């Protein structure tokens, strides 16, 4: 048991709100949890050692933030800004399009309460320790409801900024009704030695369509643990892109649960780790019913002394005939001291399925480099093109142009600062 976890359990006792009954159940589970160590399979390659010297403290230090810091050129979005768990947006002042309702987690409308009843801890009932921590402590967050048939064009963006030495827990709950369409962006940013957990749960109704982005862009000293969990209704469609960097410890769990038939999920993931950074992505795709499709592509570039962990699990249940599932993880090591642990995990109990998976780790391809040089391209430019090209492919697949145009140079600049050793 870590001191930090003991404190969490202690603090959880004093959280009293409308979600208390559910939080209570989570707390009971949490109290029986072991602090994960090297022998805990799900944490085997990700050490929780940084928690021993945690600088972040819970508390609502009021910080003024210039919202322009988060402005993305060309992106017209409905922004909900959280700073250290404090909501800086007056939801009442937002002009919301028809069919969209947004509630703060600590000031729910009746409708939001009913959404939370369906979504909170329901989309992903089996949560790991930090998911449970978030269950018991996250009093900040939003509940987003898109009514049946509503098509919300404007992306909803939840900005979650955590500043140096602050600990914060945030939750996003989203329900898309029947044939509803929406774009949701989880934009997380942790400064300095911040520590935060941020979990989101999405329930997609019949023929609902969700375009989803999660940006987990943290400083090198931050600790960030979070997840985005999706429950796919019949014929629903998900297009999700997750982009992560930074952190002495970053762990994200993405779960896509095909609960209704003929759902389609596309999930792309990019990570770009500079010196000493650690990024761990666990994705779990559950095909519980027939005729579901999942396409997952994860690509990462790992710098000197940095470490990436990728665990991609696909579980095809006995009834899930005609499932199409593809999972691919490709990594590029910029240094011999970088480390990648990649593990596709397939469990298939149905016989009429198409399932493909692959994982590769490569160093810089000397032959490709020579080829580019032989065409007159300078060495530095060739290296950038070769290596960045690798993740660029996934950036280009993002449906939102403003986000593509924002992310591409941001990642490229970051990449150019990563030395090849």
């Amino acid at each position, binding site marked *: 048991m870590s001191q930090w976890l003991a404190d969490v359990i202690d603090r959880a006792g004093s959280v009293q709100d409308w979600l208390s009954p559910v939080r209570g159940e989570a707390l009971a589970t949490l109290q029986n949890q072991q602090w994960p160590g090297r022998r805990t399979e799900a944490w085997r390659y990700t050490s929780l050692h940084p928690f021993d010297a945690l600088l972040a403290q819970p508390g609502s230090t009021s910080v003024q933030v210039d919202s322009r810091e988060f402005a993305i050129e060309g992106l017209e979005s409905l922004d909900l800004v959280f700073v250290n768990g404090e909501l800086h947006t007056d939801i009442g002042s937002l002009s919301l399009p028809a069919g969209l309702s947004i509630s703060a987690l600590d000031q729910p409308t009746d409708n939001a309460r009913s959404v939370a009843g369906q979504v909170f801890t329901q989309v992903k009932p089996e949560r790991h320790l930090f998911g449970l921590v978030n269950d018991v402590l996250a009093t900040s967050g939003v509940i987003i409801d898109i009514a049946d048939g509503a098509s919300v064009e404007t992306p909803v963006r939840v900005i979650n900024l955590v500043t140096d030495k602050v600990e914060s827990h945030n939750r996003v709950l989203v329900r898309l009704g029947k044939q509803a369409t929406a774009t949701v962006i989880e934009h997380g940013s942790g400064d300095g030695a911040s520590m935060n957990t941020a979990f989101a749960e999405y329930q997609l109704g019949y023929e609902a369509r969700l375009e989803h982005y999660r940006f987990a862009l943290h400083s090198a000293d931050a600790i960030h643990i979070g997840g985005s969990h999706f429950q796919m209704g019949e014929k629903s469609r998900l297009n999700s892109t997750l982009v992560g960097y930074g952190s002495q410890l970053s762990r994200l769990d993405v779960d896509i649960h095909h609960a209704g038939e003929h759902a389609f999920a596309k999930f792309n993931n990019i990570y770009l780790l500079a010196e000493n950074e650690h990024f761990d992505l666990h994705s779990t795709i559950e095909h519980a019913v027939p005729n579901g499709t999942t396409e997952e592509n994860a690509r990462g570039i790992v710098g000197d002394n940095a470490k990436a962990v990728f665990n991609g699990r696909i579980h095809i249940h006995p009834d899930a005939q005609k499932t199409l599932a593809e999972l691919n993880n490709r990594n590029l090591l910029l240094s011999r001291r970088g480390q990648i642990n990649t593990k596709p995990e397939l469990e298939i109990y149905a016989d009429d399925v198409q399932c493909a998976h692959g994982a590769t780790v490569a160093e810089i391809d*000397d032959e*490709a480099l020579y080829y580019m*040089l*032989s*065409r*007159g391209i*300078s060495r530095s430019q060739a290296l950038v093109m070769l290596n960045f*090209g690798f993740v660029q*492919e996934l950036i280009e697949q993002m449906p939102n142009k403003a986000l593509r145009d924002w992310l591409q140079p941001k990642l490229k600049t970051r990449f150019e600062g990563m030395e090849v050793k």
Partner: protein
Amino acid sequence: MMLSIKDLHASIDGKEILKGLNLDIKPGEVHAIMGPNGAGKSTLGYVLSGRDGYQADSGTAQFNGADLFDLEVEERAQAGLFLAFQYPVEIPGVSNMEFMKESVNAIREKRGDDPLSASDFLKKAKEACKQVDLPLAFLKRGVNEGFSGGEKKRNEIMQMILLEPKLCILDESDSGLDVDALQVVANGVNSQRDGKRSFIVVTHYQRLLDYIEPDYVHILADGKIVKSGDASLAKEVEKTGYAWLGAKAEEADA
């Protein structure tokens, strides 16, 4: 003189492959280099282009007055040297278009020309694509990614057309091609013969030389040019093979 190679020696992994090669090429000339496998034909292309591990042990190569071996790989390309690879490299994630645009503009920059705008480049690329009979979709695909052998060779010729080099070295650009593809490649090359641009056509077989008529033919065996002549020498090789070169070459062939 476009290229002047004097007494070139080069070894790979400690084994001497080129053993005193001499070759002079004037602007506008087409030189075919033929020879058995293992004679050092591909090595010559790599040494001239500057591939890692293919450094010259001794000898010189003057390229338009500059010492070629003083230049980095990219500087040689910028100076107008082009090698069409026998096995073009696949680069997923970098589009053919982006790759060629970067190349063309790197070379233009060196020449003191302004970079081509995206639309000007696209126009040129489309024309070149047509010329080598590749669908336009190939511009958007990753460099050589999933291309067939013939498509890769045609992509090399497309690059050659776009880069407008001074000296082109074609390393077995005919290998693995059927007659139609061979003709496309040869037409691409012939379209670039303008009386100034020079070519070294490296080939094992005489077949390509039916389409690209050389001014000179050299037989490379055991790291040296053992015989030079005009186009008729290629026909002779076609009839007699390389057996007349003697035991030494056959050993190299093995």
